[in-house]
């Protein structure tokens, strides 16, 4: 029998499954569709805005105590969040898709995945004295606004707005999802040295398809990689950081970024060492694009590869349609098939189905808000008139998007009386109440930290 059935294949579910499987549990992941990782920028946003919307967070360790008491981060505490982040970083290092924090120097060419891992480990041991602990990076959004990010894939690190090297944003002509001039102009408005350039996409591909994903697949090919490197060198100058749409390969991503970095730095024998050369890192970075996100797909693939290695199956296309509980224990979950419902029996169940976007929560015309798998009690605005605010971009967010499952300290869903509904049901990620992860820029942070906490909790309870 399974020790843990994870429902939902987003970052929450996959990271929880990874953590539990590494601890020796028998785990399976089922999900209605491919997870939400595909929609996001591939960065780990931990906390960018406080719920009042006014303050931008520069260091989340200082901001977390200001969150409301029921917020998932307050349930976890700073140390637990930091520990989960370290574990996630280790995973990404092992997977060959390293994620880095502010101030961390990365050299894509230097270390093998194993080396990365050990270096990360020693990092976390010294975290008490680490001045960069909790510090957000400010990366560049595809419209040229700053994105508050805690952990960035190595290929996005050089977008940091703290770095004062001049920026050149390079687009691909005819690509509908990237506008380098707009990005550069807004960066200038924010006081950065930035310009834009364009490459003729027609030289790279004869295909009509110009989606980021197609371009990323194309750039897994050596010939196209070499061509792109040459084209970039032609339009950029020495000392510039080069921002490109996030299409730099899927499988050959790290190699391609390395190649582009070398191509752009090799032509210039660096003049006298500038003061920031220490943190300079790569000279190439990616800017995320609209869904589907190539960095998100890479992260998803990396997680799934790790899970396959641990013998964890991820089965997609499974829509929950019922469950059976005796007393306070869930016995099995049922999913739809082409015929009779399929029964999934397990000792523990993790609800990681997401919020309204992920499909874990459904809000109907009559103002009812439902949890879609176990019909759990929810914390949600009382009536539809309280769901929304008049301005779309209101920084306080729309109350309906805070609807979710209230949990205890161990992340077990609670009933109205404040007691766990089931002893072996856990909830994590965007399905949790008391947070609007998109508005707070905390989606990935909550996913990883709460997923990790649940996995550890299940391991302990075994």
């Amino acid at each position, binding site marked *: 029998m399974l020790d843990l059935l994870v429902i939902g294949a987003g970052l929450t579910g996959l990271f929880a499954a990874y953590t539990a499987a590494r601890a020796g549990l028998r785990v399976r992941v089922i999900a209605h569709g*491919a997870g939400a990782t595909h929609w996001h920028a591939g960065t780990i946003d931990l906390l960018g805005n406080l719920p009042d919307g006014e303050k931008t967070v520069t260091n989340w360790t200082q901001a977390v105590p200001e969150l409301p008491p029921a917020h998932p981060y307050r349930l976890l505490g700073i140390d637990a969040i930091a520990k989960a982040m370290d574990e996630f970083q280790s995973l990404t290092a092992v997977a060959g898709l390293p994620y880095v924090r502010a101030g961390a120097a990365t050299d894509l060419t230097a270390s093998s995945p194993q080396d990365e891992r050990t270096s990360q480990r020693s990092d976390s041991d010294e975290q008490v004295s680490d001045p960069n602990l909790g510090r957000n990076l400010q990366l560049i959004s595809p419209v040229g606004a700053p994105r508050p990010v805690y952990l960035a894939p190595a290929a996005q690190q050089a977008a940091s707005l703290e770095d004062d090297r001049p920026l050149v944003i390079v687009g691909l002509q005819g690509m509908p999802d990237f506008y380098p001039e707009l990005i550069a102009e807004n960066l200038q408005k924010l006081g950065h040295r930035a310009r834009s350039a364009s490459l003729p996409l027609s030289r790279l591909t004869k295909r009509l*398809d110009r989606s980021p994903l197609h371009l990323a697949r194309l750039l897994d090919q050596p010939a196209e990689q070499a061509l792109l490197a040459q084209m970039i060198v032609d339009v950029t100058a020495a000392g510039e950081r080069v921002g490109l749409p996030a299409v730099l390969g899927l499988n050959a991503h790290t190699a391609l970024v390395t190649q582009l970095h070398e191509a752009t730095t090799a032509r210039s024998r660096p003049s006298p060492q500038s003061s920031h050369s220490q943190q300079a890192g790569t000279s190439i970075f990616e800017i995320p694009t609209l869904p589907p996100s190539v960095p998100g797909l890479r992260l998803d693939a990396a997680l799934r590869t790790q899970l396959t290695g641990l013998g964890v*199956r991820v089965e*997609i*296309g499974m829509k929950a349609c019922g469950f059976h509980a005796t007393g306070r224990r869930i016995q099995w979950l049922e999913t739809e098939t*082409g*015929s009779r419902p*399929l029964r999934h029996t397990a000792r523990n169940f993790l609800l990681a189905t997401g919020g309204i976007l992920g*499909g874990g929560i459904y809000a109907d015309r009559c103002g009812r808000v439902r949890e879609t798998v176990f019909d759990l009690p929810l914390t949600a605005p009382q009536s539809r008139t309280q769901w929304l605010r008049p301005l779309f971009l209101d920084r306080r967010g729309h109350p309906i998007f805070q609807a979710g499952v209230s949990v205890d300290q161990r992340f077990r869903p609670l009933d109205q009386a404040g007691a766990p509904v089931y002893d072996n049901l856990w909830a994590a990620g965007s399905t949790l109440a008391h947070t609007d992860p998109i508005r707070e820029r905390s989606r990935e942070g909550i996913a990883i930290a709460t997923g990790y906490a649940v996995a550890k909790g299940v391991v302990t309870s075994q």
Partner: protein
Amino acid sequence: MQNATVNSVGLSLNACIKCNICTSYCPVSAVTDSFPGPKYAAPQSERFRDFGHPYYADAAGPISRPLAGGQMPDASVDYCSGCRVCNEVCPTGVRIAEINARARARIVAARGLSLRNRLLGRNELLGRIGSIAPGLANFVLHNPIGRRLAAALFGVAEKAPLPRWHHETLNRWLARTRAQRLRSDRKVVYFHGCATQYYEPYVGMAAILVLEHLGYEAIVPPQNCCGLPMLSNGEFTAAESHHRRNVARLAQYVDAGHPIIGTSTSCTLTLKEEAPELLDLESDPGTHALKLATWDIFEWLRERLDQDQLPSDLRPLDQSGQPFILPYHAPCQLRAHRIGKPALDLLAQIPGLDLRESHARCCGIAGTYGYKTEKYQIAMDVGAELFDYVASQTSKSEPDSEGSVSFTACDSETCRWQLEHGTGLPSRHPIELLAAAYGLYDLQARRPADGS
């Protein structure tokens, strides 16, 4: 909704949030511009297909309404292979593949059906004709001149992996071995499908031997093509008459409570879901009863495993003690059942078997898709992901000689043919492997171990 013509396929259009996940997984649009992708073809284009609007169907079937001015606005949906990967990954439940199948049916209704597609839809008829003189039929269709002729006349791709007629159909084998067949109170019905009947009767033999080994009598009643080839080529009316005939022929067994078990994942999926949904037969009682009675053989065997009813006399497949490395591909049509990958659970019971699960999306063939001249190369390009995976397992295993890859496994027949075509390795149905592990079946020669 009271209105019977509103069905789940049409309504699912409303669920699309344009998130592009389907497009990012689509194996076809990844390799060709001919198919602009599932989001474009289904939820987007459907809003522009006036004549036969999203929910359209009428008493005479879903496609009978004349298109105004004969205009169907789009044609590229014909390049959807129908592999259903989009349905699998869609987080909101849009029935993309079914919307596309309906659109193709409307194109057929508007523009007519090519002779080639009509032929490819008649798998059963071809099987029957060829089986009259299998040697001659194989000669005609498996020599270069025959293939070139078929390509020129019908547009059947010259290199596509056509099956060979077997010298003996499954029915003839059953008749010949009648005396050896198990009689038991515990009965199941075996639905063999056209491919097993005419081309690969040994898959049926393996299935029957395993069922008997478990103590079940396998009833093989008269049956006909499930209609899927017609559905995927847009011939809905013909598909419906085929389906209704099967419903009638199997009704007595369904009523008696016998499970209907198949080894062809596409046939069982058609009985379970494709025919009821696409043909608007969800409310037909016979169709519904058959839907609930149908099982993929490994889905059924997994229940036996879970209930500790599986005989434990499984032996290693390679007697030399070497690990037997087996790349396994769960075909799209199996994944569309949404029953997980039961063959993996069963094959995991075979000692010494080193199962390697492919995560490739599709082998490319998608039923009859890869047989069409204009789509052959697309199918091969789609399959490259899988072929490369198999090749990587082969090369990995050679240097340290911990084992060898001599077979691949896959539940669906056309996918096996495509796998063999793309990798050069023989491919087996998992039931053949299980039968062999029980000592009932010769995996190499593809015949019962007792020589029957």
